[in-house]
């Protein structure tokens, strides 16, 4: 009876399901990127762009459903912001995949191990973000997931430091080689920052109704 009077419920379910799909696609994209990096197969990075396009249409659905009236207005901006942050993660991953295809192999060989480790962490950190979102539905311990994400992010920072140390010792003769490798490292290492921000937002969403 109450459900008939209240016009809510369906829209919220739709948003929650779509956010889950959005996060799953992000996990797939990071997994696909990790495989491309570990195998060194540059052609296989095109899957990232495909998944980013798919995620974009999901994001549009989420935002439009929220604007149709899903959730109380008080929490709508935070949910939208979270979705936008995940979308930024897709964009930066796509940029990393793009730069990867144009890398100078000689230079890349020097930092290949660290990059593979970062790609693996990126894949795991996205899985964690997906689990963190699920804990909003099941009353899991979000703080614990937040902390784990921060630990992963710290590991990426350490690896970034190692990469920078190695790259500084190289004599770059071609401007584009230098630019592409720096951009690639920037995109690769910045993904975890965005995921950390997104997980912080999940925490903000959770405490906003406490």
């Amino acid at each position: 009876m109450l459900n008939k009077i209240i016009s809510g419920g369906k829209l919220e379910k739709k948003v929650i399901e779509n956010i889950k799909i959005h996060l799953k696609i992000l996990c797939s994209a990071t997994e696909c990127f990790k495989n491309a990096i570990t195998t060194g197969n540059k052609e296989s990075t095109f899957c990232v762009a495909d998944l980013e396009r798919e995620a974009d249409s999901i994001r549009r659905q989420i935002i439009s459903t929220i604007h149709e009236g899903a959730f109380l207005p008080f929490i709508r901006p935070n949910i939208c912001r979270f979705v936008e942050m995940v979308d930024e993660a897709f964009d930066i991953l796509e940029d990393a995949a793009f730069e990867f295809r144009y890398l100078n192999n000689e230079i890349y060989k020097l930092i290949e191990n660290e990059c593979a480790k970062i790609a693996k962490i990126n894949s795991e950190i996205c899985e964690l973000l997906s689990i963190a979102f699920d804990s909003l539905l099941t009353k899991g311990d979000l703080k614990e997931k937040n902390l784990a994400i921060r630990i992963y992010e710290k590991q990426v920072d350490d690896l970034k430091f190692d990469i920078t140390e190695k790259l500084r010792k190289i004599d770059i003769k071609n401007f584009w080689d230098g630019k592409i490798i720096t951009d690639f490292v920037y995109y690769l290492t910045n993904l975890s920052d965005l995921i950390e921000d997104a997980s912080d937002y999940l925490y903000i969403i959770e405490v906003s109704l406490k």
Partner: protein
Amino acid sequence: MVEVAVVASLLIAFGIGSNDASNALGICIGAGIIKLKRAIFLFGILVFLGILLQGQKVMKTVGKNIVDVNMSIVIVVLAISAILIIISNWRRLPLSTHQVIIGSLIGAAVASDSAVNIVSIIKIVVSWIISPFVAMGFSFLLYKTLEKTISKFPFFQIEKLLRAFLIFSGMLISYNTGANELATVLGPLMHSGIEINKILLFSIASVMVFSGAILLSHRVIETVGKGITTLDPYSGFAAQFGAGGCVLFFTFLGMPISTTYCIIGGISGVGLTKGISTVKFGLLKKIAINFAVTPSLAFLFGYLALKLIYS
């Protein structure tokens, strides 16, 4: 001349519909929990149920216990109240329907040398003064209880619960609009001695409230809804439900009190949970001035109008 009293009371009922629907369901509509038309339909039904099931006590207080009403008093009181309420709505002045009706009722009774029950008047005035503070206490306790209880649920469950809570508190305020607000308007008419079909009068008055809501309330609802929906839902619910509970409590006692003032009390109660500095004492001062000015003016108009008729 009876028709004048009936028309005037129905005009006031129309005014209640146009103004008070926003008190009841503005938050729910603004939050998108319920559609406007559905909300107004629900509001109309609950107003009718309120007057039918629980309006008697307030009607008896207003129509019987304060003064000995006669037909000329009823006509003057309802006509003056209707005019004052219409003017105040048009000029956007905050006037309490209860205070206008009761003030003019006492003024007219004094002018016509009818018996005035001082004890009843004191009871009503005390109710007016303490009701916002009772609402403040209710809301304060409710907010604290919510913090301790439902905050332990998962986030999306809390959100779902709050939506249900908000619609429930809106329904409570709608019910009170019938049981207290409309009862205050119909009280003098019901106890004036005229032969009138109770159910028919309640139905017509409820239809008038419903018409006021459907024709004129959307603007007020939009203002209230958009203004209030950025509030956190806990505060909105605690303030509204605390006020609704307070009005219902006074309805059981047969006391005609203002929902608007109770909601202000409720909001202050929620504010108190964050510290005394959040309470807007300037607003409370304005309310105190209103408390004194509105019934006094209504008394004066009622007195002068009846003196004019008798002379």
